[in-house]
C-alpha cells in the first residue's frame, strides 16, 4: 500500500439554511459538518461510521464537489492532475469534469439510483459518453467487459432495471462507476438495503474490484461490522465532528473515545450466549441545529466531566431532581444567572447547607464551586473546554480525556467520573 494522500480535507464546514421561507426573519442553520480535517490515503479503504444525522453523506457530497455552500478546502492528488477545491473560489468547469471523471459514487438504494426508462447498457455507458471519452463502439466494449467483472452476463445489458433484483442492480451501479476508470469511489451505504446473502456477494465484489482496479474507497456505513470487514482505517463522526480516526483493527480492539465505545458495545454479536445489559437511557435533545457547547457528545456521554460544556440550566435541573430523590426536598427554587452559574433558594439555611454538602460530595454534578449564603446556594460551572483532535498512539481522538493541550494547561487529565 502506498501511503500518499489521495484526498486531503482541511477544516470542512457545511451548514444548511433551514429558513422555512424568505419572509421569516429568524436564521436557523443546521451545522452538518464542523471543521472536519482528514486525509484519504492512496489505496486504502476509509470507513466513515456514525449515526444518522452525523454528516456522513454530507461529507461524501463535499468530497465529490456537489455542494454549493461550504467552507474549507480539499486537495485532490490524482495520478495525472492535482486539483484544489477551495470554497473561496469557484472551480473551473474543466476541473470539475476532471474531478467527476476521477471519482464516483455508489448510492444506498439501487432502486432509485438507476433510470428505469433506460437499458442497462445505456446506464453503464452514460458517464463514458457524457465525458466525451470515446464513441459508442468503445463504450459498448467496455460495458461488456465490466458487466462480466461485476458478475453478470452480457445478456443483462439488454435488460431494464426493473427486470433485475436488488443485488443485480447494485452490481450494475458498481459497473457504471467503473467505466471512467476512477481512482476514488465513494460507497454510501451500498449494502444496507440488501439481504444478508446478497450483502456478502456485494461486499466480496467491492473488495475484488478494488484489487483489480487499484482503487481508493471511502465507505460510508452505519453497520460497524461491515465497516470492520471492509476497511483499513475508520472515521467516527458525531454531529459533524470527528470523534476518533485510526486503523480499524486498533479502534475495534480498544476504542478510546466514549462515543466509539458506546457504538461498539451496541453491536449485537451473532453468537450464542450474547446477553444485553441494562443501559441508562440518556436520549438528549441534541441535534445539528442546536449544537451543544463544548464537546458535542457530552449530554449523552457516560463519562462526561465538568469541563465538557454543561449549561447552568441543565445542571440546575439535575441538582433539583437529585435533591428531591436524595434529600426529599420539594420546594427548592432554582434560578439561572447566566450560562455558567445559577442560584438555588432553599426554605431555610439548614437545608441550604445540606444541599451544598450534596453538591460538593459528588463529582457527577460537574459544578466547579458552590457557596452558601443564608438560604441561598450559588453554584458556578467550569467554562466549557472544546477538545481538539489529539494523537493517541496510532489514532486521533477528540475528547478532553486525551487532550494534550488540556493536560498542558491544567497539569493533569480530568478525572473520569463514571456514572
Amino acid at each position, binding site marked *: 500500500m502506498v501511503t500518499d494522500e489521495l484526498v486531503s480535507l482541511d477544516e470542512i464546514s457545511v451548514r444548511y439554511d433551514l429558513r422555512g421561507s424568505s419572509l421569516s426573519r429568524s436564521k436557523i442553520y443546521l451545522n452538518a459538518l464542523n471543521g472536519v480535517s482528514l486525509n484519504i490515503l492512496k489505496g486504502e479503504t476509509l470507513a466513515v461510521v456514525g*449515526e*444518522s444525522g452525523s454528516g456522513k453523506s454530507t461529507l461524501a457530497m463535499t468530497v465529490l464537489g456537489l455542494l454549493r455552500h461550504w467552507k474549507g478546502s480539499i486537495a485532490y492528488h490524482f495520478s495525472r492532475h492535482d486539483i484544489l477545491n477551495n470554497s473561496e473560489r469557484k472551480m473551473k468547469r474543466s476541473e470539475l469534469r476532471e474531478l467527476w471523471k476521477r471519482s464516483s459514487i455508489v448510492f444506498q438504494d439501487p432502486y432509485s439510483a438507476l433510470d428505469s426508462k433506460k437499458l442497462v447498457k445505456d446506464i453503464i455507458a452514460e458517464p463514458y459518453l457524457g465525458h466525451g471519452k470515446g464513441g459508442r463502439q468503445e463504450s459498448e466494449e467496455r460495458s461488456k467487459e465490466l458487466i462480466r467483472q461485476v458478475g453478470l452476463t452480457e445478456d443483462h445489458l439488454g435488460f431494464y432495471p426493473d427486470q433485475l*433484483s436488488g*443485488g443485480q442492480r447494485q452490481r450494475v451501479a458498481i459497473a457504471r462507476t467503473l467505466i471512467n476508470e476512477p481512482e476514488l469511489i465513494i460507497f454510501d451505504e451500498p449494502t444496507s438495503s440488501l*439481504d*444478508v*446473502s*446478497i*450483502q*456478502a*456477494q456485494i*461486499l*466480496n465484489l467491492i*473488495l475484488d474490484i478494488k484489487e483489480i482496479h487499484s482503487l481508493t474507497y471511502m465507505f460510508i456505513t*452505519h*453497520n*460497524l*461490522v*461491515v465497516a*470492520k*470487514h471492509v476497511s483499513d482505517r475508520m472515521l467516527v463522526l458525531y454531529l459533524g465532528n470527528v470523534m476518533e480516526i485510526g486503523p480499524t*483493527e486498533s479502534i475495534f480492539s480498544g476504542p478510546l473515545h466514549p462515543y466509539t465505545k*458506546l*457504538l461498539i458495545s*451496541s*453491536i*449485537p*454479536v*451473532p*453468537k*450464542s*450466549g*450474547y*446477553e*444485553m445489559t*441494562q*443501559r441508562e*437511557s440518556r*436520549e438528549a*435533545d441534541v441535534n445539528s441545529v442546536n449544537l451543544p457547547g463544548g464537546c458535542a457528545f457530552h449530554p449523552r456521554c457516560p463519562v462526561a466531566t465538568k469541563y465538557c460544556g454543561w449549561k447552568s440550566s441543565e445542571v440546575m435541573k439535575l441538582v433539583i431532581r437529585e435533591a428531591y430523590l436524595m434529600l426529599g426536598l420539594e420546594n427548592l427554587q432554582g434560578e439561572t444567572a447566566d450560562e455558567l452559574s445559577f442560584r438555588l433558594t432553599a426554605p431555610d439555611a439548614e437545608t441550604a447547607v445540606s444541599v451544598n454538602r450534596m453538591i460538593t460530595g459528588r463529582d457527577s454534578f460537574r459544578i466547579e464551586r458552590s457557596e452558601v449564603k443564608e438560604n441561598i446556594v450559588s453554584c458556578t460551572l467550569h467554562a466549557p473546554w472544546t477538545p481538539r483532535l489529539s494523537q493517541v498512539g496510532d489514532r486521533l481522538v477528540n475528547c478532553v480525556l486525551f487532550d494534550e493541550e488540556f493536560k498542558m494547561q491544567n497539569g493533569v487529565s480530568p478525572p473520569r467520573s463514571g456514572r
Partner: protein
Amino acid sequence: MSVAAGKAVERGNVLSIRDLEVDFFTARGRAHAVRGLNLDVVRGEILGVVGESGSGKSVTALTVMDLLPPGTGGIISGSIDFGGKDLATVYSSKYRVAGRKGKQKLRIKPFAARRVEKIMGRSRKRISMIFQDPMASLDPLYQVDSQLLESIMYNNEAFMIGKCLEKNIIIDSQSEFTSVLQDKSTADILTWLSGRFGEAGFHREVFFIHNMSISESEKKIKIRRAIDFTKRLSSSERVRLKSRLSSRTGRFFRPNNRKRLPINRIHDPVVREAMLFSLELLEFVGMPNAENVLTSYPHELSGGMKQRVMVALAVANDPEILIADEPTTALDVTTQYQVLYLLKSINRKLGTTIIFITHDLGVMAAMADRIAVMYAGRVVEVGPAGRFFNDPLHPYTSGLLRSVPQYDERVKKLYNIPGQVPDLRRLPTGCAFHPRCDKVMGICSEKLPRATDFRERRVECWLYLEGEDDGDR
C-alpha cells in the same frame, strides 16, 4: 396431525400454525408466498423468525394479523390456532378464489370485514404488531396522545375496570396481593379479574403501579374506594361510555386534535384516566420527557422515540402476542440497542410472547429464545437459539451464518450463498433451496423433504433423512 396438535396444547402453545398456504394473485401469475408452513409459538417466549426478503416471514405475520392487502392475496388452506379459535377459516371467509385456471383472482364477499370483526371480538385485540418504519405507521396528522387514546379506548371494558382497580389498589407483588385478599368483597373482584385474565394476566393488569410505600389499612381504604368506583361505573357511566363510543365501523374512538390541555383539567373522567394511562405507558417504554411527547406530533420525534411510541401503542392493550416485524432496521445502532432491550424487558416482565422478525443475525442472537429459519415460504429449521449459532443443521442456515462479517475475527472473503431467492411464481421442484445448496443430492430436486426432529431441532432437509428416500410414498 392430531398427535402434533395434542402435543402443542401440552407445551402451552399460544399460537400454532399448521400447513398454512398463502398465495398472491398477480398479473404475471400466482405467487406462492407461504407454502405449507408449520410453526408453534410457545407462551412467553421470544420466537425469532429469520429469512431473506421473499421468504414469507412478513407475509406470515400479516396473515396472522389479517392485514394482507385486500384482493391481492389470501389464505388458500391451513389453520392458525389462537386460543382455540381457527383464525384461518375466519379470515378466509372474507373472499373466495374465482376465475379460470392461470388467471385466478380473489373475490371479496360483501360485508366481509364487519363479519370478521364480529366473529373475532376481543381475541383480535390480543395480538398486536410493531412495524419496521415508525414514521409510516404513526398518523402524521394526530398528536401522540390521540393515537394512544384510540388504542386504549378501543379495548374499553377490560381497560376501564382493570384501570380503575389499578388506580386505587396498590399491589406490587404476589405476596402483597394475598395479604390484601382478606377483605372478602375485594377477593370477589380479584377472583373475577384473575378468572378473566388468568393469574399471570391479573398480575399484568396491575403492573403499572408505582406507589408502594403505604400502610395496610390505607390499602384497604383504597380498595373499598376502587370497588365503589367500579360499581358506579358498571351502571350509569358504563352505559354512557358505551353509547358514546360505539359505532358501526368498530372504531370506538375517533382521534382529534385537542387543545394542549393539562391532564388534570380534562373534563371527562374516562378520557382523563386513559390519558394518565398513556402517560404511564410512555414512561414505561423509557421515554424521556413523556409529558411533552404526549402532545407532540410524530414528526417532532426522533426515530427511536417514534419506535418507542409504537411499542407503547402495541402494549397498550396488554397483548398476548406481540409481532415485531424488523422493528429496528431503520434505527441507529445505539438506539437499536435500547429498543431491543425494551422489547426484551417487556417479554421478561410482562410475559408477553414476542414473534421477532429480522434478517439481522446479531439482533437474533440478542433477542430470541427459539429461532425459525424460513426459506421460500417454509420453515426449514426451527429450534433453540443456542444450538442455532453453534451447530446449524440446514445448509441454508449455515450459509446465512457464514455470510455475515464476523465481529471478532477477520475473514478475507465472506462465504456467499450462490444465486438468489427464487421467484415465488416459478419455484424449483423438490426442496426450493436445492439450486443454491452446496450439499445438493439427487433426491433434492425430486421430492420435498419431510420435517424430522434432529438434535433438538426440527429440520427439513434430505441430509437428515438418509435411507428414507421412498419410505412414505
